[in-house]
């Protein structure tokens, strides 16, 4: 089955609890994104659902467990499982995170922050090279939210991402919510972050909800993915569209999952942002086509 390209519209992150609803009602969603590791099994009900899903919808796969920035080597079994998954699923886009998650063989199954140093950049560039070589395609790397900034960082986060894309040839998945969360948590200008991202590298945008953590003595936002997108993030999304142009955008919601209709509401809001700027592309323009083709490898 050939992969259907991801349109420059607003998709929804599909979690197992919503799969039955989607297969029964076939909502008008331009694309779905699934976590790669949920499909590391090689059979069963989830694969039956996935096979049914991709007959009708473009699909992207989003990894959460490769630990690209770890001082440990990449886990060969994880890499093989991902390669086999892509061979079978043929997703239009593949993405992972700019983070680490494992050290000395123990995995913490979280997206942990890197120091933005030349050492971390060199390692991540090498790992992304290894990944893209193993998969035989370009991947998108997503900026994470974080609650710690390492004071020995020598690069801004956006400089780190831009250098990673330039040196490894990977694309970027820009999570606008994470940019906002980090701007509050670490005290930088979110617009300067967006301005520092090379537009041509960005293949997808993410939107999600955060919560405010009180009582710590300073401002801290948690990237909780358990509520609607905050108005401040909608404003930053609007700025991002102005700055970067139209990109496929995804609504993510992972905890305390609401009815699927709530996610569709959020997707409609994002679509309205695209429409307002005259950017919603039911037939992506030449520029978007070129970018997506490059990203999809």
């Amino acid at each position: 089955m050939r992969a259907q390209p991801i349109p420059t519209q607003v998709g929804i992150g599909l979690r197992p609890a919503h799969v039955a609803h989607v297969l029964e009602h076939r909502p008008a969603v331009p694309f779905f994104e699934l976590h790669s590791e949920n499909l590391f099994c090689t059979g069963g009900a989830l694969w039956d659902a996935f096979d049914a899903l991709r007959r009708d919808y473009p699909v992207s796969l989003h990894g959460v467990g490769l630990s690209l920035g770890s001082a440990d080597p990449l886990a060969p079994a994880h890499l093989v499982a991902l390669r086999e998954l892509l061979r079978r699923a043929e997703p239009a886009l593949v993405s992972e995170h700019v983070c680490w998650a494992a050290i000395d063989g123990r995995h913490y199954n979280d997206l942990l922050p890197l120091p933005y140093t030349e050492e971390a950049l060199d390692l991540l560039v090498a790992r992304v090279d290894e990944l893209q070589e193993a998969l035989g395609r370009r991947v998108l790397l997503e900026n994470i939210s974080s609650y710690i900034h390492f004071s020995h960082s020598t690069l801004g986060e956006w400089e780190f991402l831009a250098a990673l894309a330039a040196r490894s040839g990977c694309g970027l998945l820009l999570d606008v919510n994470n940019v906002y969360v980090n701007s509050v948590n670490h005290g930088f200008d979110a617009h300067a972050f967006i301005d520092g991202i090379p537009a041509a590298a960005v293949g997808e945008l993410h939107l999600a909800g955060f919560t405010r953590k009180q009582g710590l003595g300073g401002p801290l936002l948690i990237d909780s993915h358990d509520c609607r997108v905050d108005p401040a993030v909608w404003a930053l999304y609007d700025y991002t569209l102005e700055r970067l142009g139209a990109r496929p955008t995804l609504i993510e919601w992972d905890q305390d999952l609401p009815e699927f209709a709530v996610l569709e509401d959020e997707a409609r809001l994002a679509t309205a942002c695209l429409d307002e700027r005259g950017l919603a592309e039911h037939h992506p323009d030449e520029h978007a086509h070129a970018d997506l083709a490059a990203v999809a490898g």
Partner: protein
Amino acid sequence: MPTSPPSLAELQRAFAGAIVDGAAPALEPWIAARGIAPTARLRIYRNANLAIHVDALATSYPALRRLLGEDCFDGLATRHAAYHGNRSGNLQDYGADFAAFVVAQPETAPWPWLGEVARLEWLRQEVALAADAAPADAAVLIAALAGAHPALRLRPCVRVLSSAWAVLDLWRHAQAPQDDAVDPAIPQSVLLWREDGQVAMRAIAPAQAAFVRALLHEASLALALAAAQLIDAQVAPETLLLPMLEHALLAA
């Protein structure tokens, strides 16, 4: 403040120490505070790590959680998450050793059968995630039996558990408690497989369990029959083979 910053590997080891033990004195000088103590920032990751792994265990072991009660289960799961952790980037792999861990904990000593319920739940997860394989029909069985060295191959989703306890009755009781109490001290063997995408289970005779277990270890048909007849000398081959066809357990 130390004069030279940690290498990436040193930083990650110290960070991992904070997740496991709650403290990373060598790392804290390199964490920007901005009004929030570095220990408080690290604690966010420690708490998230415990929550991620406790949730994963709760997902894999729902019956055990009902039998133990949420507070007791979450306490055991938190201890497991803190001291054992995961070796895989795939959270679905986490918790294979939880049954052995549960049995070894002092809280569960009065109920030695809890570990067996946990083993059954992990097998249910293996069955749910096993590779697809087309089932064989009677013609395959007949052809296999006609060969010089008959062998049968089971679908990847087939599992068997032989327990000294009434493990299936206990699992069912956890799903839907009945007025009649379950007598746990009755040995029970359970066959598990996948049917229409769902995990199916039934109690089977010990000889049948020995037969299936032998086939899972790729024994020849003759050896699998011999394993069954060591337990029940009178068991007939057709008795052992019938469930293979009834539940489509053979791979094409």
